[in-house]
């Protein structure tokens, strides 16, 4: 304890970055599956299904990520009597969270497609699922890329909350190094800089992509 911040300590921080990225990517993948499901459920003709999707989104958008993490991490085994290790539990929590936000983003993208496209597809005697798959989704996907990338940045930052339950990613590594070196003025700004290096390029990509997509469609997601 009380060692000065040197290369060893910096390496410890760097070694935590893969955990942050892995968690983010995993949650994005898991959330993509959930999100697609949720987005489609939001636009199907069935009212109960739409209500289900809306409630799901409302639940995850209306509660703190920290609470979602606590309930999943400490409650999963208690509620469903299944044992999961730390990684799957945290991954599940962030996937469910991502699914809600991605679902909302993608619903917006789907709804931005002009009604005429749906009608034209119907004229070609395609049923609802086929309309969705062959005509709408591809176009919606293009529109949804900028806000989705923007959300990915949000996700990387939110993985820092896993530090609070002791999960070792970049922020927790920063806490541990601060404890070892007693130099918060050195460690935390470096941790912030590392996150900046991870996030800023992605933010720029999102902003550039957004300029290329027709902003008149009115989908400005502000995160």
């Amino acid at each position: 304890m009380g060692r000065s911040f040197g290369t060893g300590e910096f390496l410890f921080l760097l070694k935590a970055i893969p955990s942050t990225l892995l968690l983010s990517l995993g949650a994005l993948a898991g959330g993509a599956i959930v999100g697609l499901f949720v987005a489609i459920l939001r636009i199907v003709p069935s009212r109960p299904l739409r209500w289900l999707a809306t409630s799901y989104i409302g639940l995850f958008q209306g509660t703190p990520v920290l609470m979602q993490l606590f309930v999943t991490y400490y409650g999963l085994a208690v509620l469903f009597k299944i044992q999961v290790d730390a990684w799957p539990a945290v991954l599940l929590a962030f996937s469910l969270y991502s699914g809600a936000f991605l679902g909302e983003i993608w619903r917006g993208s789907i709804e931005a497609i002009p009604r005429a496209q749906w009608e034209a597809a119907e004229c070609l005697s395609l049923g609802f699922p086929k309309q969705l798959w062959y005509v709408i989704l591809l176009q919606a996907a293009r529109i949804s890329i900028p806000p989705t990338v923007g959300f990915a940045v949000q996700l990387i930052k939110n993985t820092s909350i896993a530090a609070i339950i002791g999960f070792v990613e970049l922020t927790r590594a920063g806490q541990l190094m601060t404890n070892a070196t007693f130099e918060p003025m050195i460690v935390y700004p470096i941790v912030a800089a590392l996150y900046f290096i991870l996030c800023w390029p992605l933010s720029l990509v999102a902003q550039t992509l957004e300029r290329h997509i027709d902003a008149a469609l009115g989908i400005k997601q502000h995160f």
Partner: protein
Amino acid sequence: MNYVFQFNVVWDHLPELLEGALLTIQLSATAMALGLLVAIVCAYGKSAGPPPVRWLVAAYVELIRNTPFLVQIFIFYFSLPVIGIRLTANTAALVAMTVNLGAYAAEIVRAGIEAIPHGQVEAARALGLKRLQIFRFIIIFPALKTVYPALASQFILLMLSSSVVSTISAVELTAITNSLASTTFRSFEFYFVATGLYLAMALGFRAGLGAIYWAVFQRGRTA
């Protein structure tokens, strides 16, 4: 494994939880008001100011938006004292939340300002309105009305992210929940109820913000 739920422990402590919720509301509302002020100043600076100001605001916004809120509050509370700035926990929380909201809201408000047709401003100038009047009536008011939904969502996100200020010992709902959970060992029950309280507050804020919209932007107006 047999876990026996004991929610009655939570109900016994409900007054303390509600007090925590009140503290969260106070903290968030103050940060919202201050953050909006910061945002308006920054948005104006970015869209109408000289290049150094524009650059400064851009740097501030990018820095905040690409680093995690948790790391930001650690820096405000743990790192600043090293260079002589010591903020109490609740002050550090408020400052961090204001700074954080300011950056996000600045982008939102700026988008609203830039959406004002320049013809409006020219017409106002032709009518002899002074600069401040132009800003107040022609620019800021319509801009805020346009971006209000995005702002409201950002405000609610802020209220939810207030839960992590518990890590720097600021007192709000999550901190009180943590203390109660650790002294009664009923973590899951407490987190479950606290999540419900946050959801209630999120819904409440949405309703409240909607009422404010009606009162400020719609009452007695035809447009």
